[in-house]
């Protein structure tokens, strides 16, 4: 029996052990705390423990499980909340009360609940890796599809259970493998969390993840299967933005990872999402959501694991042919967990105490996103949206910089916008999206053929304003010529009327693409008309006195989402007003 040699925080060492392999899951001590082997040398095996180590003594047993840290995958994952190593928090509450005790051994998914299963295979069918053999409604929204493990060589179905009610551990199908062995298939399977689940091939993502947030959908879009980072100092609205995306984006399933964040925030997601109704399906949002919560005071090693647990769950549903969006809030806490463990291992630190392998870990994580063709031929995607909390709001720190290298969308949150309560506080000058080109075709086909050109016009206005602001900051707006004043005013309309979005307003919290386009179009129409009027000799003040600037700013509230035809009236009236103006002139 191997025993504990030393304990230092979450790091435990075993002396002269031979039996352990790297990344093997182990039980530590009499309380059977869950741990993982992270280093093996001739004399010492080092283990990180995912629970509190208070009270642990040298000499207590350490027992290997022979398998790497794995997630249990099967029906019962959705509408649930787990800790970093996939233990259901509701079950833990039943076991140990409001405060989480160490060493609680519970199964990840409910083993008692029965699901109404329909078999999709018959005796004699050939099953290959990734093929679906059974389906059941997991929630009213999502059909769960049980698949043959991606590692299986495949085999022939020799028995199938009749359709009916089964628990996750009941055998529903038996297959004979190529070598003649029989294998029993249940509704669930295990998968090591640090290994990406394979797919047949990666596809080029050309469909946007529609979020209903104007600055994202039009200015800085993200594709399904894409990656985005939201960096921002505290109080700039990272969590708020993530919540908005989780609520409104058109993914089939949301995996929300609360990694080292506030307990109250997770409670808020739990409460809010069970009350909110998904606009696409009229069901509570929890039906399509799974939460992973490792709050900032929960054990730090489990924080490191939570990210991998989350993405493994996402990949599993992707394999069924769903589109998944992962919200990871915040990846900086995960990086800090890496740093903490690395420090305890006395590894040589690189930048700011972070281990030298930080960039490779970050890239491994983001590379698990993608739009893919699954082994069973279906298409699915995993989109990763990771929040980054830079130390001291300094974007040059290692986590932000390394994340920037591996994501294609960068939504930089800005302190001064947040101070002015301009939400979402995404700074349009420092942010970028590399997906615009990929998505051009979709927008042109599905929204409007002018979408891209109007979008470009809006972007140009903002860029020009940015250059002009250098002068304005020094001399004020009064000294500018009229056409530049008009540009500044139009940019204000774009900022206040378009980019700024009110998450608490019933219409403004989610805006369909069509309305987004019409709003942009109204602004560019106004700009064109006003420019023309100026050229025709109308005074700038006269144009302002028409009051259209303020009307356009309030369009987001005044025109309901389901009445796009009102835009036509607006445009007509605006054109008339301008005509009158030039006639007078």
């Amino acid at each position: 029996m191997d025993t504990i040699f030393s304990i230092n925080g979450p790091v435990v060492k075993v002396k002269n052990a031979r039996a352990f392999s790297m990344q093997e899951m182990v039980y530590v001590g009499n309380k059977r705390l869950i741990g993982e082997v992270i280093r093996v040398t001739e004399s010492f095996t080092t283990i990180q423990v995912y629970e509190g180590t208070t009270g642990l003594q040298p000499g207590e047993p350490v027992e290997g499980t022979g398998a790497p840290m794995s997630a249990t995958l099967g029906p019962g994952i959705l509408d649930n909340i787990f800790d970093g190593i996939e233990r259901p928090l509701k079950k833990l509450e039943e076991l140990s009360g409001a405060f989480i005790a160490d060493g609680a051994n519970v199964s990840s998914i409910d083993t008692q609940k029965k699901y109404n299963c329909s078999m999709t295979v018959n005796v004699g069918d050939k099953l290959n890796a990734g093929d679906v053999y059974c389906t059941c409604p997991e929630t009213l929204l999502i059909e769960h599809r049980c698949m043959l493990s991606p590692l299986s060589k495949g085999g022939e179905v020799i028995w199938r259970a009749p359709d009916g009610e089964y628990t996750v551990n009941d055998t529903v199908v038996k297959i004979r493998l190529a070598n003649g062995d029989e294998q029993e298939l249940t509704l669930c399977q295990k998968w090591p969390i640090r290994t990406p689940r394979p797919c047949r091939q990666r596809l080029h993502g050309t469909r946007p993840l529609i979020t209903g947030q104007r600055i994202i959908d039009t200015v800085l879009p993200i594709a399904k299967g894409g990656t985005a980072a939201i960096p921002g100092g505290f109080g700039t609205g990272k969590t708020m933005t993530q919540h908005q995306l989780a609520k409104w984006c058109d993914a089939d399933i949301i995996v929300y990872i609360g990694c080292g964040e506030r307990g109250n925030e997770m409670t808020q997601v739990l409460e809010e999402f069970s009350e909110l109704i998904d606009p696409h399906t009229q069901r509570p949002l929890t039906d399509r959501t799974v939460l992973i919560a490792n709050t900032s005071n929960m054990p730090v090693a489990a924080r490191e694991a939570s990210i991998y647990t989350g993405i493994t769950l996402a990949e599993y549903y992707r394999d069924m042919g769903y589109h998944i969006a992962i919200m990871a809030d915040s990846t900086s806490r995960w990086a800090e967990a890496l740093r903490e463990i690395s420090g305890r291992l006395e590894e040589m630190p690189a930048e700011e105490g972070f281990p030298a392998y930080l960039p490779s870990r970050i890239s491994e994580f983001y590379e698990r996103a993608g739009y893919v063709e699954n082994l069973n031929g279906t298409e699915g995607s995993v989109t990763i949206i990771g929040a980054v909390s830079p130390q001291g709001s300094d974007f040059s720190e290692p986590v932000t910089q390394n994340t920037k290298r591996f994501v294609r969308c960068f939504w930089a949150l800005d302190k001064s916008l947040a101070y002015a309560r301009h939400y979402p506080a995404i700074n349009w000058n420092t942010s970028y999206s590399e997906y615009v080109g990929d998505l051009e075709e979709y927008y042109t086909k599905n929204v409007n053929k002018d979408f891209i050109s109007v979008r470009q016009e809006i972007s140009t206005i903002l860029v020009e304003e940015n250059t002009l602001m250098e002068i304005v900051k020094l001399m004020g707006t009064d000294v500018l010529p009229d056409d530049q004043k008009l540009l500044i005013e139009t940019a204000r309309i774009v900022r206040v009327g378009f980019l700024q979005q009110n998450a608490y307003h019933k219409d403004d919290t989610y805006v369909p693409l069509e309305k987004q386009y019409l709003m942009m179009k109204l602004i560019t129409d106004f700009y064109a008309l006003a420019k023309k009027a100026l050229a025709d000799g109308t005074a700038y003040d006269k144009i302002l006195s028409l009051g259209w600037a303020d009307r356009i700013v309030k369009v987001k509230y005044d025109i309901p989402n389901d009445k796009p035809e009102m835009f036509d009236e607006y445009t007509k009236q605006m054109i008339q007003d301008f005509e009158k103006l030039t006639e007078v002139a």
Partner: protein
Amino acid sequence: MELKYVGLSEINGPLVVLDKVKNVAFDEIAQIQLSDGSRRLARVVEVEQEKAVLQVFEGTKGLSLTNTTTKFTGKPMELALSKEMLGRIFSGSGRPIDGLGDIIPEKYKDINGSPLNPVSRTYPRNYINTGISSIDALMTLIRGQKLPIFSGSGLSHNKLAVQIARQAKIADDNGQGFGIVFGAMGVKNDVADYFKRSFEETGSLERVAMFINLSNDPIIERILTPRCALTCAEYLAFEHNMHILVILTDMTSYAEACREFSSSKGEIPGRKGYPGYLYSDLASIYERAGIVKGSTGSVTQIPILTMPNDDITHPVPDLTGYITEGQIVMDRHLEQTGTYPAVSVLPSLSRLMKDGIGEGYTREDHSMCANQLFAAYSKVQDARALASVIGEEELSAGDKAYMHFGKLFEEHFINQGFDVNRSIEETLDLGWALLSTLPKAELDRVDEEHLKKFYDPDKAKALFGE
């Protein structure tokens, strides 16, 4: 039979090492008896086979390799708890120091607490009326929230904390219990005394439990102080259903104690020499606020920290801001112009505010009024920046209006005096009156309906003159 170990094998700063010890558990507490009979407490911070590293709370002064006997208690650090703790004064490690003798414990609890299961939390929604306009209107304090005060040396953060504690209508309508737990880490004697005196003057001393570690007390004890205070608070809140306001000052001293201890342990430092796990460590304190399902009590935290060199990006305020649910930032410039409380409105924030205000909580126009005040005041900053370049005379009429608004806002809204206790109605009406000094078109965060109801330049004129 009780095992006692004679002598030590190494002493290094606050750490001592014992060799050839048996059955020592990680994190357990040991008692070290000196040859002169005095006792000190120590905690096991690392064990390796038969070697244990201990952290001595009261410091290692006077310890030698031979003059001690050490006894392990087999338990992590526990605090004796009782309802009688209110009205008493304790040392940083939880020993009574007011000369009234030991308390009669109803229960012992591990001071490190356990993480609260997010499933068992109730999301905080009830606002606390502090009577301070800037806080109530713009960064509303919610029961069960953790809202720190970011301050600097020489600013009036202590006065503000006392005013909040005094005016906060935290108790339920049915007059349910309300208590204050005060934890002082490394504060000056004067500061501890100021709080004690202020609580006495307002007659609330019998509702206050004080845990005091002065700046000349041992630093390791400082690491225990907030944990003892919060264990006491949790006990009163969740087992006796009381509403507890926890004031912790000064978190910067606490973090410095962590740094001192970490460096003597030879750990790899993170930013500015603070240990890499400072975030997790601070979180284990701040996260102990909230409301637990099935209990009607609550723990609300107001930690106070001084930003070294007024730098909000310093690791301590920075990490704190990432954990807490907002912050109240104090401003030196406002303080110097005689404004009290010198709350810097723009960087201040309450994250829980959005769900605790509006109809049924404060007033339905609250969020609109607050948003517009924020937006307007942020434009004041732009106008001021411009005025400092081209002079106030040269500003456009719009910018001049903002300059005027900014002055009034600071004079009448932020500034309010130590004894002034405003109701939420007074505060919001004042806010609307101030907004009414601006041209109507500038109020772009307000809808027509509310403009009609609240925009009233004549009233503003009557209030503030021309």
